[in-house]
């Protein structure tokens, strides 16, 4: 009898986390370069208390991971010459105080030393380290394969990188990812750079709202299950304990 309650409880716990993930997706529907996430659930068979080691007919729910959908977000024009969107697979490599980070958020700006940086002030890594511009020479132009030129002269190149397994990436906030494995990224050959554009998030708001409704209904259902299980034991105690 108690098993039913614990199965219900395991589902409720995962539903709460699912709700947190959905809420984060909805909150970030307008975030540049944001990739939508989904909780991965699995059944975890266990045997009831009395038959330990025997068949395992009781199936709990367990959240085992988080899937990130790295599909392309929609590109939109901003008209800002330091905005760069990546089309296809690949990440910008950013040099931060805590080591290399990777991002799809291409809103760059200049720091006091005229280097291309993120909005937080971390340097964008080009083919020869930081990308240094000469502010006296007029606007930058960035080709589709990442070559940056100013006044007709090549001053560097953006070399996006890609990962064999993107599940090794950990989100750090501010649109940055960290590589948690020892596998080094390789150059992303298929990526195309678009100057003056940004990549929107790939959140599908309607899908998220639908999922939210499902989560909320499932949670209520589980609450009712727990309630009814309690009533069952209540009834059992009342009947069995009756003196006749």
């Amino acid at each position, binding site marked *: 009898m108690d098993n039913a309650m614990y199965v219900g409880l395991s589902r*409720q716990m995962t539903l*709460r*986390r699912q*709700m*947190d*993930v959905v*809420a*984060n997706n*909805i*909150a*970030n*529907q*307008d*975030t*540049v370069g*944001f990739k939508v*996430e989904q909780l*991965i659930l699995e059944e975890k068979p266990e045997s009831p208390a009395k038959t330990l080691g025997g068949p395992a007919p009781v199936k709990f729910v367990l*959240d*085992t*991971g*988080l*899937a990130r959908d790295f599909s392309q977000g929609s590109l939109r024009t*901003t*008209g*800002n*010459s*330091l905005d760069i969107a990546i089309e296809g697979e690949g990440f910008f490599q950013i040099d931060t105080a805590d080591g290399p980070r990777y991002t799809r*958020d291409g*809103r760059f*700006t*200049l*720091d006091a030393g005229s280097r291309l940086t993120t*909005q937080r002030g971390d340097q964008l890594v080009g083919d020869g380290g930081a990308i240094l511009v000469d*502010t*006296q*020479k*007029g*606007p930058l132009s960035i080709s589709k394969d990442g070559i940056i030129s100013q006044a007709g002269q090549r001053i560097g190149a953006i070399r996006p990188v890609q990962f064999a*397994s993107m*599940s*090794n990436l*950990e*989100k*750090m*906030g*501010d*649109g940055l990812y960290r590589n*948690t*494995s020892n596998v080094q990224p390789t150059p992303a050959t298929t990526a195309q750079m678009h100057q003056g554009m*940004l990549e929107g998030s790939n959140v599908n*708001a309607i899908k998220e*709202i639908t999922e*939210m*409704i499902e*989560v*909320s209904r499932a*949670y209520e259902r589980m*609450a009712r299950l*727990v309630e009814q299980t309690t009533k069952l034991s209540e009834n059992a105690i009342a009947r069995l304990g009756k003196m006749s």
Partner: protein
Amino acid sequence: MRALRTAASGMSAQQTNVEVISNNIANMNTIGFKRQRAEFQDLLYQNVERMGAQSSDTGTIVPTGIQIGSGVKAGAIYRITEQGTPTLTGNKLDMAIDGRGFYQVLMPSGETGYTRAGNFSKNDQGQLVTKDGYLVQPAITIPQNATDISISASGQVQIVQPGSTAPVLLGQLQLATFFNEAGLEAIGGNMYLESGASGAAVIGTPGVEGVGKIMQAYTEASNVDAVTEITSLIVAQRAYEMNSKVITTSDQMLAAASQLKG
């Protein structure tokens, strides 16, 4: 529940978005105004189950891990420096810039401000000033007896004086260009200041080497497009509503949990 706070951060970010859009709409008819856009960034993530953690004694690892985000914040609000439409006013001291560049203005604080609002006037001494009375640099002083003033596309200011038919060259207007115009700091009054992100001002002659041309008797309208702004407003409002739905749903879930014990 984390979802409550996450959705609240989403609502406040969308509120910032609406504020930026409403400022754009309010400045639809401001001369030389450049529209702005709010961009967002995700907040910190909490690792519920760390990826790469060992899941057994034999050395298998958790491949994906669980990271739960905590919402969104407004990352940057930046300016879109597209050209506004030149509008004919017929006023001889209105000068729109067609192309890149800013007029230099001497601010009362001694700093140099930069503006694209070329609706200038004369002060009591005949000096060319902005609508706030700040001097335009390089200074141009128009004599009292000038009967006509003409400004060429390359910024030469010429006047005609009584008793003479030949125009007299009074001075040369110059424009400042910036490497990254979007990085300029707006201080209100159509005025901008140089910043670390904009790069230093490069002074040039109008019409030369990528510097814009001057159009006399025109002003530059704002580059706000009403249809785009209203569409963004609708999108922002819907996003705001969705975030508020997340809050009500989380609240219902909490209520369901608290009603368990009847």
